[in-house]
């Protein structure tokens, strides 16, 4: 990705203002799809921020006591309750999948079909594992603990409502990412990104930059999870 | 030419409408005349800007109509002028904002001697509660509302026992005595608004909101709900009567406290029980051995 003309441009703040003042593009050398993904992620950040800020507001103002997440989300291991065990594993899986995604992007730009495809697949499997564990968490709370969006035995009823809504939205984002990851893994192995085969719906030429764009989305999903983990489970 | 004249007519017409309008605010009947004064200041400053800007526009229409070969000024910017205009606008804005913020400061700081009056709103009427002898309102909750506790007063709170219940939509107030209105809603958002008092605040279910004012003029005023609350919103009216001490005491005497309300209910219950027992004992007097 090293472009000789790009390297000649000034860097730092001066570079930023020169770029903004220049003609044609404000972000030099940035693929359109990548730029669109950044802006989309900015918008999506506002969505999750609204969810989390609303959660903090309601938690601060409800009269009923708020349940202790470390107790609600504990798992039994060898007879003793281990607080937050499941989400610790989930967080590890998701962060690792971000790592495999970054490797996939690297191999993609090196045009190493086999390694790129393998790491995309690994990321997809990591994501799928995460969703599976989230589903397990949900079923445990719903079927065994009686947690509902409208009530729960642990404390304020908004606890369940926020839990399902926020993790549901996040899980949906992860699932959409997993679907795209499997589709892209197939495209990589088939060699579509090498040949520049045109997409079925969009009829645009395939390029390895698409892996990087999907990678951006995947890292975003991971980052949102870190915030959810911090605000909902740890606080 | 006619274009310029018509636009000029619109400006002059607006000013004349403002001066001659029969639709003008009600005479202020509370202490919040300062809000009216801020509005008048805003009319002068902001209204002045409107008139000046539009007159300038009309002038341009008259002075610069299209003429082939007219000499047109090519001046992409004039930083000095822009800076000056910015400063003038900023000063104008501060001149509007500062007095307004002082009035707002007064609005949120309730005087110490204000009488607390609870206004309860529900779809689609009003009722009221006064703190009684101890000057304190008892705590309450929507969950406590039952037939024998229509205001939902906490039965364990001693402050609530002497609260005066006004279970109709007519509220009386003393002239020249500030009141702090504590708003409660039993269902959705409402707003207790009397145009002549100027003050208002939404009643929000789940919390108690407040505002204060001091009635200055005796008279009868209409209350309007000023926050959309469903199909009955427009019909959710009430009355506020501002009167002197003597008439106020007369009105107050007609309403009972919470404890006498409870006692009356108890007594009724007791009476009903007695009637039941008497009826029973008519048949089975000998068995029940009841003394008359």
């Amino acid at each position, binding site marked *: 990705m090293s472009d000789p003309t790009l390297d000649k441009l000034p860097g730092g703040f001066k570079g930023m203002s020169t770029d903004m003042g220049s003609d044609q593009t404000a972000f030099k050398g940035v693929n359109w799809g990548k730029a669109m993904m950044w802006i989309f992620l*900015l918008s999506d950040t506002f969505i999750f921020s609204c969810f989390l800020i609303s959660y903090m507001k309601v938690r601060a103002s409800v009269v009923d006591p708020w349940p202790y997440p470390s107790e609600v989300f504990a798992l039994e291991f060898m007879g003793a309750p281990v607080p937050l065990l499941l989400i610790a594993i989930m967080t590890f899986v998701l962060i690792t999948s971000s790592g495999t995604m970054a490797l996939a992007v690297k191999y993609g730009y090196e045009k190493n079909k086999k390694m790129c495809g393998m790491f995309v697949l690994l990321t997809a499997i990591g994501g799928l594992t995460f969703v599976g564990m989230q589903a397990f968490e949900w079923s445990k709370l719903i079927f065994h603990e009686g947690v509902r969006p409208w009530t729960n035995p642990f404390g304020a009823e908004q606890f369940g409502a926020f839990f399902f809504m926020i993790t549901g939205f996040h899980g949906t984002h992860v699932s959409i990412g997993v679907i795209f990851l499997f589709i892209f893994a197939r495209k990589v192995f088939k060699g579509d990104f090498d040949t520049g085969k045109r997409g079925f719906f969009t009829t645009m030429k395939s390029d390895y930059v698409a892996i990087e764009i999907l990678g951006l989305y995947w890292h975003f999903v991971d980052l949102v999870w870190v915030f959810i983990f911090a605000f909902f489970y740890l606080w | 030419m006619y274009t310029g004249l018509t636009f000029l007519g619109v400006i002059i017409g607006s000013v004349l409408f403002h001066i001659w309008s029969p639709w003008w605010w009600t005479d202020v009947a509370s202490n919040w005349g300062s809000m009216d004064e801020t509005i008048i200041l805003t009319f002068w400053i902001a209204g002045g800007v409107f008139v000046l800007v539009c007159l300038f526009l009309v002038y341009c229409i008259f002075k610069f109509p299209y003429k082939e070969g007219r000499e047109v000024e090519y001046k992409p910017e004039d930083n000095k002028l822009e800076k000056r205009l910015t400063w003038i606008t900023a000063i104008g804005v501060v001149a509007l*904002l500062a007095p307004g913020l002082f009035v707002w400061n007064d609005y949120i700081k309730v005087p110490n001697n204000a009488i607390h009056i609870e206004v309860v709103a529900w779809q689609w009427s009003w009722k009221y509660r006064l703190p009684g002898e101890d000057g304190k309102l008892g705590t309450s909750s929507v969950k406590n509302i039952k037939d024998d506790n229509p205001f939902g007063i906490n039965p364990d709170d001693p402050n609530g026992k002497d609260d005066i219940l006004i279970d109709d939509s007519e509220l009386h107030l003393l002239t020249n005595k500030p009141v702090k209105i504590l708003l409660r809603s039993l269902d959705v958002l409402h707003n207790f608004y009397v145009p002549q008092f100027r003050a208002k605040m939404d009643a929000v279910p789940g919390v108690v909101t407040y505002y204060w004012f001091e009635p200055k003029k005796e008279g009868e005023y209409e209350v309007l709900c000023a926050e959309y609350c469903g199909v009955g919103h427009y019909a959710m009216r009430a009355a506020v009567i501002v009167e002197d001490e003597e008439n106020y005491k007369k009105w107050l005497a007609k309403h009972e406290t919470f404890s006498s309300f409870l006692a009356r209910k108890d007594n009724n219950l007791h009476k009903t029980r007695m009637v039941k027992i008497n009826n029973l004992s008519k048949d089975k007097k000998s068995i029940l051995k009841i003394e008359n």
Partner: protein
Amino acid sequence: MLDDLDIKKKNSQPKTKSSSASGGGTDIDYVKPAEVPDQDLYHGHSFITKWIFCQDAKVIGVQYTLTAVLTGVIGLILSWMMRMQLGFPELFPFFTADSYYQFVTMHGMIMVVYLLTALFLGGFGNYLIPLMVGARDMVFPYVNMVSFWMFFLAVMVLMASFFVPGGPTGAGWTLYPPQAILEGTPGSSYGILLMIISLALFVIGFTMGGLNYVITILQARTRGMTLMRMPLTIWGIFTATVLALLAFPALFVGAIMMTLDKLLATSFFMPTILKAGEVLAYDGGSPLLFQHLFWFFGHPEVYIVALPAFGIVSDLISVHARKNIFGYRMMVWAIVGIGALSFFVWAHHMYVSGMSPWFGFFFATTTLIIAVPTAIKVYNWILTLWRGNIKMTVTMLFCLGFIVTFVNGGITGLFLGNVAVDVPLSDTYFVIAHFHMVMGIAPIMVIFGAIYHWFPLVTGRFLDEKLGKLHFWITFLGAYSIYFPMHYLGFIGVPRRYFEMYDSPYITSAVGMNEFISIAAFIVGAAQFIFFYNVIKSLRLGKLAGKNPWKANSLEWYTPNVPPVHGNWGDKLPVVHRWPYDYNVPGAKEDYISQTTPPSEVREAEVEKT
């Protein structure tokens, strides 16, 4: 599908010398070479791919415009029904309070979101952005096409709410809980759900479109087109789109939470409620949370409507007064500044909501600060007219109408923004008069002015000038007579959202005023038929306009074909040498110099270096 593809010839010759006919090449005409290869567009060949699922942004723009305008006509009809009830209640006994509140709600939501936002961003944005920045199309035409059909679906779902049991929601366009989902408000069972679903679809569609607009403007400009050489129309639409991308999430989140409150009996917004003698299952929620979320969206939303109008009117005034827009750089900074500040003023809609009173100080201050860049824009518009050469075309008339109504509406905003003044005036007809003047009349003036201006580009024909002037005068004078006096209803204390106009023994009667306003509204409504007739007639019989009939400078008038075809520019993309406001430059031969005119052709003119 793949055989339909037609890859455009690559425009890969970097221009290092001017190729103008006179005098060979000189360095003063140098423009940097192209940074990216020419865009590769999908050309439809069947009727469906050329007109229905078309990826050409111009077709999509027309689709948005037609859908938004038709939806707006429904909103207009709803307003007539409201005025019938308010002006002459005895004549229309079949209007019940239920149906009145449904009209109020649907009218508000349709006009703000489905007409104004869709028309400015989806209609004007799609048509004008690629043309004005010199691109062949949007950066992702497929997603752009999908975005229109999402909007169309959103409109269908909204219209469907008229036909479900209980009818459409009557909760007011602000949809406040708890009343929006409780009995006692019309449409609280199905109507509110369809409204929310429709809004969610709208947000998703507009995110897709918005990404296109933003990235096309940032990354797909032609050679020589710097950000500060873009017409203000683009700046306005660009900033509005950024606002939309950041503000709609709050609405989306509020809508999701309200849906869960309705469907799953959660208590995000629902506190303990007593209804018909029974305490409902809700507990602990906060109605104010919804208001914060809604207005965090709602305030930027009104700037999403206003900023494109500001940008467009600047260009219209400039062309028709044959003068550069005064203070272009300040205008750009004002647009960006207003956009940024708009995120910090939302709670001025909540001064009497019961929120912490200390917020009143903060939001009153930020609200009045935002008045400063807005005032600068007004000064710059009238300074553009000063010493100009004003052609009194229909477009210019609408621009003048805009200035008068916008200043009026903006001024009344100062009343409401000042927190203590808002206390007596909030929730009265003063507020209704304010927002109709500033959001209804002023932007509509710009829309009409813009249509009369760009109709020759889109169709190749002029709209009839005489009918246009008649349309303007009735609309402007009529609408002003509706909303200017309405402020005084607010002063006397008439609250808003009253089914029966409030008539009190203590206050001057409003009956006569209401009758007058209703009649004026019917006249203005009828006058719009003049406009529609004009459009339909002129499509076939309008005077042929030829190329660049208004002698404007911006790129959209310099396509090889008029109306422009798919790909816009033919074989060669335009090269830009200047800003679009070189009108009446001293020393120049003509009273306009197009953006594509190289400096070597206008050596004698004293142009500003842009």
